[in-house]
């Protein structure tokens, strides 16, 4: 018989982690009040929402939501452009490859992490209180949102760039800033464009719900119709947004193929 090597003992991650995860799962389900019996008993109530939801009133939606939809798109455009524009320099400061100062690297990285911890709707709530109800608050909220995502994605991309061109630039005697501009920036610009389109799509999705807290866009209509349980008026909005998102997705796939 051949000698089969012994299986290595499982790591601590498995021996402690998995039982802990299972316990935590059970505890979570208990705490959120998971109750399959209640669920099946009240399942018929779904009709309140789903019946109108699947009987969309298209004519009403065409007449009343056009302005709000345009507002949603405008919020997304402005926020993703401004947010990504701010994120571009910040990402270079928040990457080990381009920021040689350990402390300022840490500072920028922590700043981006901090912005990322706060959910988009929280930003929207805070800005509606600060600058008043309306789309301006929504734009500010989504600027923070896109800044955080772009900062994370781009700074990680910069971390993994090819150091060759930077060394070459340094060898010709260029300063650090020149090196970054001529050798690091061109390497990540295609990624930047691809991320930008992705973030634009996320912003469109997110700007739908901003209106729930009064930060403008089509969510305002969703919120007012929801209170009256008029889901037949909400579902066309969802479908329209979905179509817009799919179109952007297709467009960004096409662009990404060309530039990457």
């Amino acid at each position, binding site marked *: 018989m051949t000698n089969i090597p012994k299986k290595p003992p499982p790591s601590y991650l498995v021996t402690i982690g998995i039982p802990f995860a299972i316990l935590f799962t059970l505890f979570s*389900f208990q*705490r*959120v009040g998971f109750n399959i019996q209640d669920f099946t008993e009240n399942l018929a109530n*779904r009709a*309140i929402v789903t019946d109108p939801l699947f009987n969309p009133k298209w004519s009403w939606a065409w007449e009343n939501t056009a302005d709000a939809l345009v507002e949603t798109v405008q919020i997304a*455009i*402005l926020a993703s452009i401004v947010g990504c524009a701010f994120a571009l320099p910040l990402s270079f400061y928040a990457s080990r490859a381009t920021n040689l100062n350990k402390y300022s690297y840490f500072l920028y990285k922590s700043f981006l992490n901090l912005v990322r911890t706060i959910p988009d709707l*929280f930003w929207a709530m805070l800005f509606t209180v600060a600058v008043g109800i309306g789309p301006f608050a929504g*734009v500010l909220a989504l600027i923070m949102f896109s800044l955080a995502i772009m900062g994370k994605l781009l700074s990680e991309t910069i971390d993994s760039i090819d150091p060759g061109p930077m060394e070459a630039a340094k060898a010709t005697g260029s300063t650090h800033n020149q090196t970054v501009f001529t050798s690091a920036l061109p390497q990540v610009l295609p990624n930047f464009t691809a991320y930008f389109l992705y973030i634009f799509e996320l912003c469109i999705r997110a700007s739908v719900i901003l209106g729930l807290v009064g930060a403008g866009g089509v969510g305002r209509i969703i919120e007012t119709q929801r209170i009256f349980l008029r889901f037949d008026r*909400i579902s066309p909005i969802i479908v329209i947004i979905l179509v817009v998102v799919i179109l952007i997705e297709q467009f960004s796939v096409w662009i990404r193929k060309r530039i990457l």
Partner: protein
Amino acid sequence: MNIPKQPLSHKILKYTLTSVIIFASLWSAAGLEITIERIIDAPRQIGILVGAMFPLDTSQEAFDRIIPKVFESLFIAWAGTVIGAIFSFPVSFLAAHNVAVGAVSRITKQILNAIRAFPELILAFVFLPITGLGAFTGTLALGIHSIGTLGKLSSEVIEGIDEGPLEAIKSSGGSKINELIFGVIPQVMPTITSYWLYRFEINLRASAVLGVIGAGGVGQELINQLRFRDFPRAGTVLICTIVLVLIADAISASIRNRIIKGKVVKS
């Protein structure tokens, strides 16, 4: 010295892109009635709000109210992710074209796309009349949405596997089921587990938001305090949320790192 000129098509592309971006921003800003004065005034107004939050409300009563809500968000996110993980795992095999038959894979993929189309908040609207106001509603909304996203990501992982081990199992007489258990699952498990954790991080933020419509979690607390203009307490809610998300993110990220990169061998 001869420096090669930039090709003309490049220049044209550059200028068109720049003008499109500038035009789109101006059009949006005009449509949203964002004026220079409002932009200049915004930092001051934000400063006032932040100033009003300090000193934070650190009374015992505030923490007694806020901490359970923050943890509720954590439980909602975890339970939702587990629901998503359990259901999306088998579904992702059905959606992968190299495991399932062509037609099955296409149909499953379309179903997953349809699920993903509904934002969590809209799903929460659907569940509100069934499960009432509370954490269970948020859990189900997050769970269903996670099935869509995790199913898509996991099926893509399965589609990207190395076919070699499968062939080896086939040639040693293994059945189709053997192929799945010994060929596919060991290859995809690390990546899929890390996607689960990644989804948990996203769900944690989403669950904080769900409270706005009464589906449990810390969002309710924040919007209430802001409505009652109790800014110090709103600040406490915010700080507690940030701390929780930071800690959960750090733990989740380190586990993901360990799963993907393997044990760091000390030399």
